[in-house]
């Protein structure tokens, strides 16, 4: 996730990272990580980076922060597929969850 501010709107954080703040902590799929303090309307990236083991970097020359995925374990922390929203080749948004009820083979390829 890219941000030009070290604090971001809570809903934007949830949308971008797939984490959801609930009373029991930060939750993703079927798993919740307890947080020491309840999250308000904004999220501080340095704090959440520590709590969720998401590496945070700053590029000072561009004034941009980048927050990586949860690290220190496995690439998949739950078998429940994270929501994936990407544009199709015509530019229309597509959500993986729109295919619930059907088996899906997700194929990564590249033109290069």
């Amino acid at each position: 996730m890219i941000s030009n501010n070290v604090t971001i709107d809570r809903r934007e954080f949830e949308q971008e990272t797939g984490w959801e703040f609930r009373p029991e902590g930060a939750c993703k799929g079927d798993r919740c990580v307890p947080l020491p303090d309840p999250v308000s309307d904004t999220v501080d990236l340095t704090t959440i980076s520590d709590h969720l083991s998401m590496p945070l970097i700053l590029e000072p020359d561009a004034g941009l922060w980048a927050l990586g995925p949860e690290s220190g374990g496995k690439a998949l922390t739950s078998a429940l597929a994270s929501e994936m929203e990407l544009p199709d080749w015509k530019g229309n948004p597509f959500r993986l969850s729109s295919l619930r009820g059907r088996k899906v083979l997700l194929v990564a390829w590249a033109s290069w």
Partner: protein
Amino acid sequence: MDLPGWQELRNELYPKGLEIVAVALDSNVDAARGVIEANAPNHPSLIDAQHSLGALFGVVNVPSGIWIDEEGIIVRPPEPAFPAPSPLQNAEIPEGLPDQVREMLTEAKKIRNEPEVYVGALRDWVEHGSESRFALGPKEVIEQSRPRPRDEGLAAAHFELGEHLHRTGGTELAVKHWREAHRLQPDNWTYRRQAWNSVNPTQGPSEEYEGDWLSDVRKIGAENYYPPLKM
């Protein structure tokens, strides 16, 4: 390039309950769009400029396939996915090619692909669902996904930042972050090939980046470019 080949399988397996979603890991969105348009697939074909499938699922090379069941549960984590034998496999390398291209093709011919095993397993899963011996349980799926040490999480942040800078014109800074992503996660081929490709379409040596396709494949041995399927 691996988009063609899936269409035929999709035609066969869609009526049996499978959808194929093709995702191009391509920071050069126009290049991906051109290939998709030319192939006119009738299944969803998405473009992932940030290579977010790396962060989301642990994809590090293409082609990779991930199986997801009707409830949205992953039943096989990313693994090499070929719909058909590589046309390179039995092809003669034509005379008169530049040395670098000839050597790249020679190495590429040695790369393992196991389309019969993969497609056989896919058909079995589509037919038998969770009863298929190829459908893994949640614990196995997590266990068989890639380890993600902190460095690889950092690599994802650097790649995403590099892509953002690349797209918004901060080319020099972009190179810095893509190089850092390569250093932190050296076996991520999508990060490296994307960067090489952005400065040299044949992915040969460049001033900007360490390594190049031919040297790096030779370093690990072409036969290790993809792990063998555990099927």
